[in-house]
């Protein structure tokens, strides 16, 4: 079984976002980057499928040299091969998906895994764009995956419940938290990752379809009222919610 996992290198969740004076990009000075959390579930799932059914796993990322850190993390977890599609400038979801699809078309994996969304621009669209570009079925927001006999049975989250979705392979699967508990790279894995190759090639980018006009901070919210410090404040809170906020 040939498995590909697409991953992104993103600011960690504790990052306070600062916007550059160009008003279309963020200031990355002092920002810690990491393997996007949902992509980590995707890497783990790829490794589990490989361990159960044999096969090989390739991890792919699109970006500049800094993405090698995230690729090394996946290699340290146990992935064998890494591909960096090099691209330095601005790009949109469509452009990223196009470049990934070009690479994946040649690779022709049985399963392509993504995180359900990258936690930077939060589009949650790249994986499904790639699926459509490759004319493959896809299942998004997957919390349970069972691969067997050329098909996959997935359980995916929807509003207020789960859907059980059956898909033929090859397919694109988008991982959600809950799918698995990602392993920590072992010391041996980290050492081994250093000598695993990262294949670098230029990304085949498509023309951008979405243009950024402005990136800005959300309107600051002023601190509100402290209604009290014990349960005697409850009637006043209810009054405020009823009369002032009118939410109950």
């Amino acid at each position, binding site marked *: 079984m040939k498995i590909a996992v697409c991953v992104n290198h993103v600011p960690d969740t504790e990052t306070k976002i600062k916007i550059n004076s160009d008003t279309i990009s963020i200031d990355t000075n002092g920002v810690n980057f990491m393997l996007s959390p949902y992509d980590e579930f995707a890497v783990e799932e790829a490794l589990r499928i490989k361990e159960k059914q044999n096969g090989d796993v390739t991890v792919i990322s699109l970006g500049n040299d800094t993405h090698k850190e995230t690729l090394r993390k996946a290699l340290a977890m146990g992935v064998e091969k890494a591909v960096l599609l090099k691209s330095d400038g601005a790009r949109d979801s469509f452009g990223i998906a196009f470049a990934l699809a070009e690479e994946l078309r040649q690779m022709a994996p049985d399963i392509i895994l993504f995180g359900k969304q990258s936690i930077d621009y939060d589009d949650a669209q790249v994986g499904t764009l790639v699926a459509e570009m490759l004319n493959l079925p896809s299942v998004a927001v997957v919390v349970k995956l069972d691969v067997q006999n050329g098909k996959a049975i997935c359980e995916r989250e929807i*509003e207020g419940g789960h859907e059980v979705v059956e898909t033929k392979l090859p397919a694109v699967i988008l991982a959600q938290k809950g799918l698995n508990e990602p392993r920590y790279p072992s010391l041996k894995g980290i050492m081994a990752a250093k000598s695993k190759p990262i294949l670098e090639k230029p990304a085949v980018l498509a023309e951008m379809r979405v243009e950024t006009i402005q990136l800005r901070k959300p309107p600051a919210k002023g601190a509100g009222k*402290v209604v009290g410090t014990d349960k005697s404040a409850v009637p006043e809170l209810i009054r405020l919610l009823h009369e002032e906020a009118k939410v109950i």
Partner: protein
Amino acid sequence: MKVLAFAEQRDNKFKKSAFETVKAARGIADQLGAEFVALVIGSGVAQVAADLGAYGATKVIVVDDPSHAQHSNTACAKVIATIATKEGATLIMLPASQMGKDLAPRVAVKLNAGLAADCVALKVQDGNVIATRPVFAGKAIIDVRVKTLTKVFTLRPNVFTAAASQGSAAIEKTSVALEPSDFGSVVKEVKVATGRPDVTEADIIVSGGRGLKGPENFYLIEQLADVLGAGVGASRAVVDAGWRPHDEQVGQTGKTVSPTMYVACAISGAVQHLAGMSSSKYIVAINKDKDAPIFQVADYGIVGDVFEILPELTSELKKTLGK
């Protein structure tokens, strides 16, 4: 010019996000002086399609076919793209629900369109639609313009209004031929979780954090939620500790929510949590620590012990709300 809105239904009932999408799309069509059409896809949906008239649809295209009884994203996307082409619609709007997010990229590729996902505001400026969407889980906001002729937008649920008004819609039934190969993946079963609303759709959310000390104390959150008809949310700390299921997690690695009221109980307010809920209209915080960051975004706060305050709040609300 023509705007097409996809009205999502499940079990032949429209989702609130369907009404929100139709109403917002109709508003944009009016500003652009464009025609407007709504699209409903399903099996046995013809009866409910007229409901969209109250949200500004004057014409609803209905694709009612037994093959859509079990949802398939690949088949459904083909129907939307086919109808959009037939209608000559160049602005396509879908809810950014789990279903909509699954369809929009496919529709965009089929129509050579650019896609602005998870929009929280749309405005018309010089004949262009400017879409506003949160990024970095709401730590920043981006305004974008789709450059392609055909444009696809998904609209975040619970953000756009869905107030009903007078109006009726003409129903036009049509069909789109599908091949077995169009059904690449198919929903086999839907499992409904709890009776409580999902946090992405709830008007009110009551959320609990580590200060509740253990999963056994979450009944305090659930009781308050049930009095308010609210959804139950949780912080990352309690989900990672295994106290609560991950589908309740609010924050950057959970769900981003925009309810009318968010009640944060014993949640300190880590950056990644605030990112996921600070667009709530009203925020109530109950926390022992007066310096907790949650108070910096809260409209109303009680600096106190949740174990004392929550039972009191639940019982007082029961009286107030007559439950």
